[in-house]
């Protein structure tokens, strides 16, 4: 009888220790997986075979008050990421720094200008072959396989955001294929965004501590960009054209 009691106590202890082990194991595994789950949730990264979603509208909020004259960290980062120099007069410039001076007050501003990723892009309207197109998540791109290099999109863009590749290119980034004779423009670093990262310009601006470029989902009311746009006055460049652009400016 006593032997039976001892045996049953031993069994209970073994079950308890097994439970404890499984419990601790689950906790450790949970702790190990949690950061990945959290990151995935924040960055909205998506598998390669999943199409872009119209539930998202990628955009940027650029605060000219935080953008310093003479700083071109965003421009350098864009060139490095996408493989262009912008040194020759005919070289592509996907992003440029514009210096503004108010002729009446003398007040000056500095801000980056890039493709505005319009909701109703004139470049897409005029492109004869459909090479210029807008993704479901609002990113405006050029399909370089069917771009014939007519440059009509460059004539139509109100922001001078597009460049034509005037010569052979070397040392390209394999993630960003480019080609002579085609038109190109800022892709919002779509290759990074699809991996769940930020565009290079936005990252570089944050790394330098300026935080003048905020990237995010304009459709998500809980995103920081949406909250800031809801809370403060922002400007659309050439708002008179009613293009509902994805790039908003603050402080001009």
């Amino acid at each position, binding site marked *: 009888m006593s032997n039976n009691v001892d045996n049953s106590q031993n069994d209970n202890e073994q079950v308890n220790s097994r439970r404890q082990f499984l419990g601790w194991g689950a906790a450790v595994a949970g702790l190990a997986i949690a950061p990945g789950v959290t990151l995935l949730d924040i960055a909205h990264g998506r598998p390669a075979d999943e199409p872009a979603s119209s539930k998202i509208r990628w955009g940027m909020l650029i605060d000219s008050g935080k953008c310093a004259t003479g700083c071109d960290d965003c421009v350098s980062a864009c060139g490095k990421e996408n493989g262009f120099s*912008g040194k*020759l*007069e*005919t070289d*592509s*410039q996907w992003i*440029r*720094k*514009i*210096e*503004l*001076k*108010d*002729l*009446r007050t003398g007040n000056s*501003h500095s801000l980056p*200008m890039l493709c505005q990723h319009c909701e109703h892009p*004139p470049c*897409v*309207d*005029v*492109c*004869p*072959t*459909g*090479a210029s197109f807008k993704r479901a998540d609002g990113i405006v791109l050029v399909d370089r396989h*069917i*771009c*014939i*290099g*007519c*440059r*009509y999109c*460059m*004539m*139509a*863009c*109100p*922001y*001078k955001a*597009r*460049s*034509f*590749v*005037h*010569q*052979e290119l070397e040392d390209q980034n394999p993630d960003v294929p480019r080609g*002579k*004779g*085609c*038109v190109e423009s800022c892709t919002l670093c779509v290759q990074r965004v699809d991996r769940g990262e930020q565009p290079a310009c936005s990252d570089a601006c944050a790394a330098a501590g300026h935080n003048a470029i905020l990237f995010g989902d304009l459709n998500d009311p809980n995103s920081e960009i949406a909250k800031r746009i809801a809370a403060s006055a922002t400007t659309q*460049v*050439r708002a008179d*054209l009613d293009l509902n652009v994805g790039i908003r400016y603050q402080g*001009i």
Partner: protein
Amino acid sequence: MNFEAFHKIEERAFYALAAALGLVVLIGLGAAHYMETHGHVVTGMNNQIVWGLPHVFAVFLIVAASGVLNVASIGSVFGKPIYKARAPLSGLLAIALLAGGLTVLMLDLGRPDRLIVAMTHFNFKSIFALNVILYTGFFAIVATYLWTMMERKMYGFSKYVGFSAFIWRIALTTATGSIFGFLVARQAYSSALLAPMFIIMSFSYGLAVFIIVQSFMYAWNGMKLDLAILRRMKNLLATFVGAVMYFTIVYHLTNLYFAKQWDFERFILLEGGVFTTLFWVGQMLIGTLIPLALLLHPTLGTRCKTVVWAAGMIIVGGFAQLYVIIIGGQAFPLNLFPGMQQSSSFFDGVIHHYQPTLPEFLLGMGGIGIAFLLTTIAVRVLRFIPQDDFHHVSKEMLTD
């Protein structure tokens, strides 16, 4: 020169002319090859002036192609016998000029090797895509029109096909003007006036080209043009030149009405350097006022040589006008931030510079070469010389 003497040298003269034009075409193709292998970096074009001299040539040829068909339309659609006799030549020139213009346009593409893509991928919201359809349709309709005019069995259909061609060419030039008219971003364009203005420009340039070609063909055959016919055609040409001037004035007055366009108007009319010179001297003086004075002069205007000179000046003025519209419209900077001075490494806020290079010019000349090589060969193979003149030329009515 008498006809027998001419007949002896005709064959040699034909081959010499065809060889000269063929050389021009070859040089143009060579220039296009050079541009394609090196890229547009060898042209004067950049990311600010994206359409350069080849577009001026191409648009001129395309607009003139549509306008030159006007001669046939007046004959077939409106039943004027003098013009009806000129309809085959009019149709031939329309096809030849369009072929020349489209060749230049195609070879100036960044990827001319993707022509098949342009023919198989259509964004129907694009005026450019619409133009591809209108251009190919124009070839088909005008070729059919020529067939109905030159094949006796088809005579009965000529008027109907001619009417279709008339409607088609109005649509085509409307679309050509709309390439610019639909560009809301730039101050030079974005105007509904551009489509009708391009139509009337096409009438003027097309008739000027027709008169010059007709005169050379008459000279080639040792013939002289009937004075009554000359008088009618030169009066029509003067009317078209006046109409182009009217549209030009209305276009600038409309801009001047809007305060936001004043800077642009000051640029074109007063301070634009080469563009201002081309507008006043090229377009207005050489292309409009002097030809008008010559054509409307009671004695000078009845001389064949004077009319040919006037037509030549109208063509020079047409090139100047298109240069001002196409290049000048891009040279004026986009105004992204009204009321602010703008500067950047991408030339924001400054007048954009453009210096055309030799390959661009040669490509454009190649287009002209194609147009006239096709015309020369076709005229030799088939009878395109206006027929009435062989039967009704009257010595008493000749001049010079």
